[in-house]
């Protein structure tokens, strides 16, 4: 298969403006089958916005988005569910697609929450709910998985296991994954392509390339780049509080 056919979603110079303020602009990235693309960047740098642009949740965007699949699994960063709804975990699993009982059980077992299947969603802890969210997203065997800080609130050992699971899923289902994560270690070891955001794309490339990049170091500090490699560097610009670039 040519690489053209492997493309699941492609952002070209995409941006989104709200109340006359750019949340993010000029983002170009491509998610292909079997590849993990990770977005990193400080708070408010436009990671979730970029994910929502890729998903088509934001309508009036600049630039363009080409989406080649409708089989999407999404784990949002924030989810507010209204508890006027009586909703069990097993009802929630069927929310957007009718999947078999077997697939539900399998997905819940993989994320370690099968025992919660008949529990009310409102009674789960934050970490448990996060595992259910991941299970729901993978149970429909999507072609594109968008995971926005998927392991927030999950305990340390669970975090490692879940990242391993995510890596496995990308291999076995050969689905493309757009991941947002603050865990630089995971990002740098398990990702094919890293996009470093700060209102715009600061730098992107393989984890190795990004770790060497000066802008990355400027954003995350020297320690962060030592996760992969130690490298000589010079800052060529700094960011003001408004995120604007100032050349040194």
């Amino acid at each position, binding site marked *: 298969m040519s690489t053209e056919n492997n493309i699941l979603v492609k952002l070209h110079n995409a941006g989104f403006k709200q109340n006359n303020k750019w949340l993010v602009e000029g983002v170009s990235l491509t998610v292909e089958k079997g590849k993990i693309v990770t977005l990193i960047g400080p708070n408010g740098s436009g990671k979730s916005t970029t994910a929502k642009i890729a998903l088509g*949740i934001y309508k009036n965007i600049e630039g363009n988005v080409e989406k080649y699949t409708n089989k*999407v699994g*999404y784990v*949002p960063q924030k*989810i507010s*569910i209204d508890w*006027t709804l009586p909703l*069990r975990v097993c009802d929630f699993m069927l929310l*957007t697609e009718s999947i078999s009982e077997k697939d539900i059980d399998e997905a819940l077992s993989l994320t370690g929450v099968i025992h919660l299947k008949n529990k*009310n969603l409102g009674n789960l802890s934050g970490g448990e709910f996060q595992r259910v969210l991941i299970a729901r997203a993978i149970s429909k065997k999507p072609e594109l998985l968008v995971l926005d800080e998927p392991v927030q609130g999950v305990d340390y050992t669970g975090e490692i296991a879940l990242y391993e699971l995510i890596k496995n899923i990308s291999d076995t289902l050969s689905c493309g994954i757009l991941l947002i994560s603050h865990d630089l270690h995971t990002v740098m070891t398990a990702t094919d392509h890293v996009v470093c955001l700060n209102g715009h794309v600061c730098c992107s490339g393989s984890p190795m390339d990004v770790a060497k990049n000066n802008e990355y170091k400027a954003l995350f500090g020297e320690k962060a780049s030592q996760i992969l490699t130690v490298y000589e560097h010079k800052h060529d610009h700094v960011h003001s509080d408004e995120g604007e670039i100032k050349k040194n």
Partner: protein
Amino acid sequence: MFDDFFVRALFAGIGIAFVTGPLGCFVVWRRLSYFGDTLAHSALLGVTMAYTLDLNIAISVFLISSVIALILIQLQKKTNLPGDALLGLLAHSSLAVGLVVIGFLTFIRFDIMGLLFGDILAVTTDDLLIIWTGGALILLVLKLIWKPLFASTVNYELAEAEGLNPDRAKAIFTILMAAVIAISIKMVGLLLITGMLIIPAAMARNISDSPQKMVIFSIIGGLLSVVLGLYSSLEFNTSSGPSIIAASLALFILSLFKIKQSIKLKN
């Protein structure tokens, strides 16, 4: 069999309960009770239009309520007023305009009480036909949009991201709301339709742990309210609407005991 006014009223009420059950659940889940009220108030304008133009009341009410719903959606987009202010604006102004128009129609004798609170004597065989075919149609459409509507009720962004087109489902649901008000106005009366939508659903919420169960209990609650309400309306010579709503309130109060029990069980 439908010669007896009471049998007609009973069948009309049963037909209405089948539709208000599931729709009422969505009204509760999506917090639309005031929206339902607004559409119901605007129904008065629909009734006056029916009399002036000699149209069927249900069809005329359906048209006016749909128009009011569309105006509301447009106003929400175009103005900075909060949603509840817009709802109040449309509800009371359409009620007022409806009453003013009635004032001008001196040549027609209006039963205002019947309009506001329902009248079991008013149900004709034609109304039965409209309630049952209209009701079946509403339920069929609701079944078709169930998945996107329910998913976006739980979380809009999940539904949108995973390709379910929640905006279309929401627009269709708005039309269904106008339709259910149109078919139930004669029986329940325009001031009490929202009660018929939310009280059985609220009762069902107290005793259900899944959305499907809540829909089923809501239908059963509505059916019981209609039967109990209509028999007491006949017995005590009260308006049909208030009698049905009072019966549903009694069921709601009963359901509160179930909550108490389950809280006790937990402790």
